[in-house]
Protein backbone atom coordinates (compact mmCIF):
# COMPACT_ATOMS: atom_id res chain seq x y z
CA UNK A 1 0.00 0.00 0.00
CA UNK A 2 1.70 3.14 -1.17
CA UNK A 3 1.08 6.88 -1.42
CA UNK A 4 3.44 9.13 -3.39
CA UNK A 5 3.14 12.90 -3.78
CA UNK A 6 5.72 14.05 -6.29
CA UNK A 7 6.66 16.65 -8.89
CA UNK A 8 8.03 14.02 -11.32
CA UNK A 9 6.04 12.08 -13.89
CA UNK A 10 5.31 8.37 -13.37
CA UNK A 11 5.45 5.29 -15.62
CA UNK A 12 2.12 3.44 -15.43
CA UNK A 13 3.55 0.22 -16.87
CA UNK A 14 6.45 0.18 -14.44
CA UNK A 15 4.13 0.87 -11.49
CA UNK A 16 1.80 -1.94 -12.57
CA UNK A 17 4.71 -4.36 -12.94
CA UNK A 18 6.11 -3.41 -9.51
CA UNK A 19 2.69 -3.84 -7.92
CA UNK A 20 2.05 -7.32 -9.25
CA UNK A 21 5.53 -8.86 -9.47
CA UNK A 22 5.62 -12.14 -7.56
CA UNK A 23 2.09 -11.65 -6.15
CA UNK A 24 0.20 -14.41 -7.91
CA UNK A 25 -2.84 -14.16 -5.62
CA UNK A 26 -3.82 -11.01 -7.54
CA UNK A 27 -6.51 -11.74 -10.12
CA UNK A 28 -7.05 -8.21 -11.42
CA UNK A 29 -5.81 -4.63 -11.23
CA UNK A 30 -7.85 -1.50 -11.94
CA UNK A 31 -5.91 1.61 -12.96
CA UNK A 32 -7.22 5.17 -13.17
CA UNK A 33 -4.99 7.79 -14.78
CA UNK A 34 -6.00 11.47 -14.65
CA UNK A 35 -4.66 13.77 -17.39
CA UNK A 36 -4.50 17.54 -17.93
CA UNK A 37 -7.16 18.60 -20.49
CA UNK A 38 -6.58 21.40 -22.99
CA UNK A 39 -10.05 22.89 -22.48
CA UNK A 40 -11.97 23.88 -19.34
CA UNK A 41 -15.12 25.97 -19.02
CA UNK A 42 -14.93 27.04 -22.68
CA UNK A 43 -11.35 28.34 -22.44
CA UNK A 44 -8.22 26.76 -23.76
CA UNK A 45 -5.76 25.77 -21.05
CA UNK A 46 -2.06 26.11 -21.83
CA UNK A 47 -0.77 24.94 -18.43
CA UNK A 48 -1.91 24.00 -14.97
CA UNK A 49 -0.10 24.44 -11.66
CA UNK A 50 -1.06 22.16 -8.78
CA UNK A 51 -0.51 23.45 -5.27
CA UNK A 52 -0.85 21.21 -2.23
CA UNK A 53 -0.50 21.14 1.55
CA UNK A 54 2.63 19.06 2.27
CA UNK A 55 2.04 16.80 5.23
CA UNK A 56 -1.75 16.94 5.14
CA UNK A 57 -1.82 15.64 1.57
CA UNK A 58 0.07 12.46 2.47
CA UNK A 59 -1.99 12.07 5.66
CA UNK A 60 -5.30 12.36 3.80
CA UNK A 61 -4.25 10.02 0.98
CA UNK A 62 -3.04 7.42 3.49
CA UNK A 63 -6.35 7.71 5.36
CA UNK A 64 -8.49 7.13 2.25
CA UNK A 65 -6.27 4.24 1.20
CA UNK A 66 -6.75 2.69 4.65
CA UNK A 67 -10.50 3.20 4.27
CA UNK A 68 -10.46 1.38 0.92
CA UNK A 69 -8.50 -1.49 2.45
CA UNK A 70 -11.07 -1.73 5.26
CA UNK A 71 -13.97 -1.88 2.79
CA UNK A 72 -12.59 -4.21 0.10
CA UNK A 73 -10.28 -7.27 0.13
CA UNK A 74 -7.29 -5.65 -1.57
CA UNK A 75 -3.90 -7.20 -2.19
CA UNK A 76 -2.43 -3.78 -2.90
CA UNK A 77 -3.31 -0.14 -3.54
CA UNK A 78 -1.28 2.72 -4.96
CA UNK A 79 -1.93 6.45 -5.23
CA UNK A 80 0.51 8.76 -7.03
CA UNK A 81 -0.45 12.45 -7.25
CA UNK A 82 1.72 15.07 -8.90
CA UNK A 83 2.09 18.76 -8.03
CA UNK A 84 3.80 21.69 -9.75
CA UNK A 85 3.46 22.88 -13.34
CA UNK A 86 1.81 20.52 -15.85
CA UNK A 87 0.78 20.87 -19.48
CA UNK A 88 -2.14 19.41 -21.47
CA UNK A 89 -1.67 15.68 -21.92
CA UNK A 90 0.48 15.34 -18.81
CA UNK A 91 -0.43 12.73 -16.22
CA UNK A 92 -1.72 14.18 -12.92
CA UNK A 93 -2.79 11.19 -10.85
CA UNK A 94 -2.63 7.41 -10.79
CA UNK A 95 -4.87 5.22 -8.65
CA UNK A 96 -4.30 1.46 -8.84
CA UNK A 97 -6.02 -1.28 -6.85
CA UNK A 98 -5.29 -4.99 -6.95
CA UNK A 99 -7.52 -7.78 -5.73
CA UNK A 100 -8.30 -11.45 -6.31
CA UNK A 101 -11.44 -10.47 -8.23
CA UNK A 102 -12.37 -7.56 -10.50
CA UNK A 103 -15.35 -6.32 -8.47
CA UNK A 104 -13.26 -5.19 -5.49
CA UNK A 105 -10.57 -3.75 -7.80
CA UNK A 106 -13.05 -1.68 -9.86
CA UNK A 107 -15.11 -0.45 -6.90
CA UNK A 108 -12.17 0.47 -4.66
CA UNK A 109 -10.41 2.34 -7.49
CA UNK A 110 -13.57 4.34 -8.22
CA UNK A 111 -14.00 5.04 -4.50
CA UNK A 112 -10.40 6.24 -4.13
CA UNK A 113 -10.50 8.73 -7.00
CA UNK A 114 -13.92 10.06 -5.94
CA UNK A 115 -12.82 10.52 -2.32
CA UNK A 116 -9.44 11.92 -3.26
CA UNK A 117 -11.14 14.69 -5.25
CA UNK A 118 -13.03 15.94 -2.20
CA UNK A 119 -10.50 15.25 0.61
CA UNK A 120 -6.94 15.58 -0.65
CA UNK A 121 -5.70 19.20 -0.28
CA UNK A 122 -4.76 20.04 -3.87
CA UNK A 123 -5.70 23.19 -5.80
CA UNK A 124 -5.41 23.75 -9.55
CA UNK A 125 -4.40 27.06 -11.10
CA UNK A 126 -5.09 27.15 -14.86
CA UNK A 127 -3.32 29.35 -17.37
CA UNK A 128 -5.78 30.50 -20.08
CA UNK A 129 -5.69 33.23 -22.77
CA UNK A 130 -7.77 35.37 -20.34
CA UNK A 131 -5.15 34.94 -17.60
CA UNK A 132 -4.63 32.63 -14.64
CA UNK A 133 -7.62 31.36 -12.70
CA UNK A 134 -8.13 28.99 -9.78
CA UNK A 135 -10.29 26.00 -10.67
CA UNK A 136 -13.55 25.94 -8.72
CA UNK A 137 -14.75 22.78 -7.00
CA UNK A 138 -17.70 21.09 -8.67
CA UNK A 139 -20.88 20.01 -6.86
CA UNK A 140 -20.76 16.89 -9.06
CA UNK A 141 -17.51 15.88 -7.30
CA UNK A 142 -19.24 16.12 -3.91
CA UNK A 143 -22.13 14.06 -5.29
CA UNK A 144 -19.71 11.44 -6.63
CA UNK A 145 -18.01 11.15 -3.23
CA UNK A 146 -21.34 11.08 -1.37
CA UNK A 147 -22.27 7.94 -3.31
CA UNK A 148 -19.64 6.11 -1.26
CA UNK A 149 -20.82 7.36 2.15
CA UNK A 150 -21.52 4.42 4.39
CA UNK A 151 -25.18 3.61 5.05
CA UNK A 152 -25.29 3.22 8.80
Amino acid at each position, binding site marked *: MTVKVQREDFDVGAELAAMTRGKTAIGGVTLFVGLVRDMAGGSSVSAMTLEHYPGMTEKQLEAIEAEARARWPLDDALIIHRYGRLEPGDQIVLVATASAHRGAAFDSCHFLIDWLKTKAPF*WKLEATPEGER*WVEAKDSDDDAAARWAKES
Partner: protein
Amino acid sequence: MKVLYFAWLRSKIGVATETFDPPAEVTDVGTLVEWLKTRSPKHADALANSKVVKVAVNQEHVAYDHPVSAGDEVALFPPVTGG
Protein backbone atom coordinates in the same frame (compact mmCIF):
# COMPACT_ATOMS: atom_id res chain seq x y z
CA MET B 1 -0.82 29.34 16.71
CA LYS B 2 0.30 28.76 13.14
CA VAL B 3 -2.17 29.65 10.37
CA LEU B 4 -1.58 28.59 6.75
CA TYR B 5 -3.37 29.92 3.65
CA PHE B 6 -3.61 28.12 0.31
CA ALA B 7 -4.59 28.85 -3.30
CA TRP B 8 -6.51 32.14 -3.80
CA LEU B 9 -6.72 32.72 -0.04
CA ARG B 10 -2.92 32.94 0.01
CA SER B 11 -2.75 35.25 -3.02
CA LYS B 12 -5.51 37.55 -1.66
CA ILE B 13 -4.03 37.80 1.84
CA GLY B 14 -0.49 38.05 0.49
CA VAL B 15 1.20 35.63 2.90
CA ALA B 16 1.32 31.84 3.11
CA THR B 17 1.81 31.53 6.88
CA GLU B 18 1.22 33.59 10.00
CA THR B 19 2.21 32.76 13.56
CA PHE B 20 0.60 34.59 16.49
CA ASP B 21 -0.97 34.25 19.93
CA PRO B 22 -4.72 34.54 19.38
CA PRO B 23 -6.80 36.59 21.85
CA ALA B 24 -8.90 34.86 24.50
CA GLU B 25 -12.15 35.19 22.51
CA VAL B 26 -10.78 32.80 19.88
CA THR B 27 -12.00 29.38 21.02
CA ASP B 28 -13.06 27.65 17.81
CA VAL B 29 -12.62 27.92 14.05
CA GLY B 30 -15.57 30.29 13.70
CA THR B 31 -14.24 32.82 16.23
CA LEU B 32 -10.74 32.49 14.76
CA VAL B 33 -11.98 33.37 11.26
CA GLU B 34 -13.93 36.35 12.63
CA TRP B 35 -10.81 37.59 14.44
CA LEU B 36 -8.59 37.03 11.37
CA LYS B 37 -10.94 39.29 9.35
CA THR B 38 -9.98 42.18 11.66
CA ARG B 39 -6.24 41.83 10.96
CA SER B 40 -6.31 43.68 7.61
CA PRO B 41 -8.64 44.66 4.75
CA LYS B 42 -7.02 41.86 2.70
CA HIS B 43 -7.95 39.29 5.35
CA ALA B 44 -11.50 40.68 5.49
CA ASP B 45 -11.85 40.44 1.72
CA ALA B 46 -10.37 36.92 1.43
CA LEU B 47 -12.45 35.53 4.30
CA ALA B 48 -15.71 37.35 3.47
CA ASN B 49 -17.60 34.27 2.25
CA SER B 50 -17.16 31.45 4.75
CA LYS B 51 -18.96 29.04 2.40
CA VAL B 52 -15.84 28.89 0.24
CA VAL B 53 -13.32 28.87 3.11
CA LYS B 54 -12.60 25.32 4.29
CA VAL B 55 -10.57 24.54 7.38
CA ALA B 56 -8.16 21.92 8.65
CA VAL B 57 -6.89 21.77 12.22
CA ASN B 58 -3.68 19.79 12.66
CA GLN B 59 -4.12 18.50 9.09
CA GLU B 60 -7.64 17.09 9.56
CA HIS B 61 -10.73 18.55 7.85
CA VAL B 62 -13.00 20.15 10.47
CA ALA B 63 -16.18 22.24 10.75
CA TYR B 64 -16.37 25.83 12.07
CA ASP B 65 -17.42 24.67 15.55
CA HIS B 66 -14.19 22.69 16.01
CA PRO B 67 -12.14 24.01 18.97
CA VAL B 68 -8.73 25.62 18.40
CA SER B 69 -5.94 26.33 20.87
CA ALA B 70 -2.58 28.09 20.91
CA GLY B 71 -0.46 25.14 19.77
CA ASP B 72 -2.61 24.22 16.76
CA GLU B 73 -1.73 24.33 13.06
CA VAL B 74 -4.79 25.77 11.32
CA ALA B 75 -5.09 25.82 7.52
CA LEU B 76 -7.64 27.88 5.58
CA PHE B 77 -8.26 27.04 1.92
CA PRO B 78 -10.88 26.98 -0.84
CA PRO B 79 -12.68 23.71 -1.64
CA VAL B 80 -10.07 21.25 -2.94
CA THR B 81 -9.72 20.56 -6.68
CA GLY B 82 -7.21 17.72 -7.04
CA GLY B 83 -7.50 14.46 -8.94
